């Protein structure tokens, strides 16, 4: 009756409501992003001066904006931006968190103290403020906004990795590795890292919703994506100017954003239940 862990994972994942729901929502976004060219009826930057601020109708499902661009098409193309944010932002946080966390947890000492101080330092200024400052310095565009948010958010991941590393370090199998003369590097990445992979997957999926929200907020504030990008944050911000005449401009992109964030949140909770039952909260 032996089942491989991977098989077991798939079996139990079928029963996990959160995971399946999150997965379906995520796949729907993925499909929109991949087949945007086929799905969207218009190009995201194709304006039609004859149809400015059209209310939602048959030709324009979600209406048009002040330049006559089809809102539905822009939202469909916007999924690409959001997935880019999730992918790049998540990766930067993951790499920084893992490397710094492993080094600090494994070596301890001065490196560790320095990092804790740095963590305290970033703690001193609210993340959004810090991200704004970083973006100002490195320049306002989407990539920089993603970097800024990741730079502000990676510390919590590093802290978790550090704690896990410290507890693993003293376990018997690591000591066996030491006895066999494994190098520090190999111990860190071949012995400890594989053991925290499930926790890492959970951490990243839990970090994605806030990463997406913060990055979109930067775009909303005008220091992220620049026009004519179909970034949802930027679209809501544009929509505010026409809030009395065309409220749909601010509503639909926000709705798309909430749907996306929600899909990552639900997926994250499902993954947590599946991979890291001990972390299961009572909430």
């Amino acid at each position, binding site marked *: 009756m032996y089942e491989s862990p991977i098989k077991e994972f798939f079996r139990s994942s079928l029963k996990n409501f959160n995971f399946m729901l999150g997965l379906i929502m995520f796949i729907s976004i993925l499909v929109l992003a991949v087949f945007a060219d086929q799905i969207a009826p218009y190009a995201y930057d194709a304006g039609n001066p004859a149809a400015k601020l059209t209310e939602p109708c048959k030709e324009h499902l979600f209406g048009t904006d002040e330049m006559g661009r089809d809102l539905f098409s822009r939202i469909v193309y916007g999924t690409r931006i959001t997935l880019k944010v999730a992918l790049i932002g998540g990766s930067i946080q993951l790499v920084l968190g893992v490397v710094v966390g492993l080094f600090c947890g494994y070596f301890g000492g001065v490196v560790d103290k320095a990092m804790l101080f740095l963590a*305290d*330092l970033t*703690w*001193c*200024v*609210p*993340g*959004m*403020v810090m991200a*704004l*400052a*970083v*973006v*100002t*310095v490195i320049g*306002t565009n989407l990539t920089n906004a993603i970097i800024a948010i990741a730079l502000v958010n990676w510390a919590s991941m590093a802290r978790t990795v550090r704690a896990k590393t410290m507890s693993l370090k003293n376990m018997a199998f690591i000591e066996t590795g030491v006895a066999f003369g494994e190098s520090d590097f190999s111990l860190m990445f071949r012995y400890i890292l594989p053991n925290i992979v499930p926790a890492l997957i959970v951490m990243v999926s839990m970090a994605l*919703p806030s990463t997406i*929200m913060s990055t*979109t*907020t930067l775009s*909303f*504030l*005008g*220091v992220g994506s620049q026009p004519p990008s179909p970034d949802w*944050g930027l679209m*809501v*911000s544009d*929509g*505010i100017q026409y*809030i*009395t005449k065309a*409220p749909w401009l*601010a*509503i639909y992109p*926000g709705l798309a*954003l*909430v749907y996306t*964030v*929600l899909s990552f*949140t*639900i997926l994250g*909770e499902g993954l947590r239940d599946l991979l890291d039952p001990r972390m299961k*909260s*009572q*909430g």
Partner: protein
Amino acid sequence: MQYVVKKLLLGIVLVICVSFLVFSMLYMMPGSPVTLMAGEGASLERLEEIEKEYGLDRPLLVQYADWLYGVTVEQDFGISFKYRLPVWDLVEERIPVSLRLTVITALIQYAVAVPLGLLCAYKKDTIFDRAAMITSMIMTSVPSFWISVLLMIAFAVERQWFPLSGFSTWKHYVLPITAGVLSGLATTMRLTKSEALDVLREKYILTAYAKGLRENAVRCKHVLRNSLIIICVQVFQSLPWLISGYIIIEKIFVIPGMGGLMITSIINQDFNVVQCLIFLISIMTVICNILADLMLGLLDPRIRISIGGGDK
């Protein structure tokens, strides 16, 4: 007392480090404040002149030391490149606006979220709890700027109950504060619930029941009292974050607070103002953290001893 002094000293060190970090980050920017002041297409000589005038050609450490001296001794935060006014004059009247909003928001938020969270813990796994948890999950997925937009559309555009923007009558307060409360509500509620559940699992709750206390007495005197320790700490720690949350809300509702100024200054690359605002916020963060620690000591006798420096 010793503990507080130690925390305070550490806080000062942190604030100085942060301000230096921000200062050097802004220093690394290639001469933009100068171009901003001189206007487009100014001659190279003119640029150098301005650099000299404001001492921007000196090395980083000298400039920073000069800035820090000005701030600590003369309360001089320099001059806003954009408005050509002393930074402090710009910032001064905006601080109370932001603080007032933040404190009112925090009060309402906790007054609503804590009872809801407790109720969820007591009624765990009932329909009420599930509904509240699903709602809160959805709410944590809604960015504050969109909540603000929705509130505007619903209550300022569709029904003109409240004004769209500005900041003169009490009616102007309603929508921004609602947006602020809503954006933090779910997190606070979840925190309260998980904290209360932790306390409910403690043995002393069983003791309280075993000695014959009534349900409500146990809930108020033991569960609530002990959950409040963490919740109070959370209140203080979250205040600076609320301020940063208000950056967005202030911008949307055009409120003359610190957040609105911050955004404009960042976009205009008005660095002295940005530097000053970050400095103020980091001081506030440190103060709030010390207050949180003191609060913890006040509420938890186990910590009181170590803060008082009584033993060891």
